[in-house]
């Protein structure tokens, strides 16, 4: 079953605008990761945030994590047409014998118009 749920399912913006995607999850996590998938290609790891972190930056990406609300957001600033892709959050469950099992959400389809 999918642990994460992304919101919105689809997002359409103009180049230069910011894009925000949200992810909610159900169980306690070790970390949360965001991946990007371009049409017809595999997934690319973007950024990882640990459960004891609240915010993380990487280039034009900013990720926040609120473990009390079991939610995360991904902000892409100054978007470009090349950012057009599907974005997935994936959670690594805390404890147990998960051995690195990531559970992916359904994804947000981002379209950036030139």
């Amino acid at each position: 079953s999918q642990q994460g749920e992304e919101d919105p399912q689809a997002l359409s913006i103009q180049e230069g605008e910011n894009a925000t995607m949200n992810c909610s999850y159900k169980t306690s996590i070790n970390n949360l990761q965001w991946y990007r998938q371009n049409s017809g290609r595999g997934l690319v790891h973007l950024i990882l945030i640990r459960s004891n972190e609240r915010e993380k930056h990487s280039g034009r990406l900013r990720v926040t994590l609120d473990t009390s609300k079991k939610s995360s957001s991904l902000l892409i600033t100054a978007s470009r047409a090349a950012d057009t892709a599907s974005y997935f959050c994936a959670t690594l469950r805390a404890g147990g014998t998960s051995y690195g099992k990531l559970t992916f959400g359904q994804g947000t389809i981002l379209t950036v118009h030139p």
Partner: protein
Amino acid sequence: EAGVAQSPRYKIIEKRQSVAFWCNPISGHATLYWYQQILGQGPKLLIQFQNNGVVDDSQLPKDRFSAERLKGVDSTLKIQPAKLEDSAVYLCASSLVGLAGGPHEQYFGPGTRLTVT
């Protein structure tokens, strides 16, 4: 550094036929994963190997799917017999992590798009 390699990239078969996918992970990566991604959904883990041992295959339909990772490097995923609902992209990923612990950042291959008619 070479990425995760997969072949074939595309495969079309009829239902009840068999098919096999191959994956070569990034050199030195102990953990290998096979995911199934149905159109419009996120990837779903089918099986996870730690070296050549299975760690998690709870979501693998074992009556028709099988996978192996001989010598702890390359891996093959087989479907026999295929059903229409097996149409999906099959993604292979690998990561450095050994035992439980570490960030488990995963590196994905380009995937194999399977169409069952």
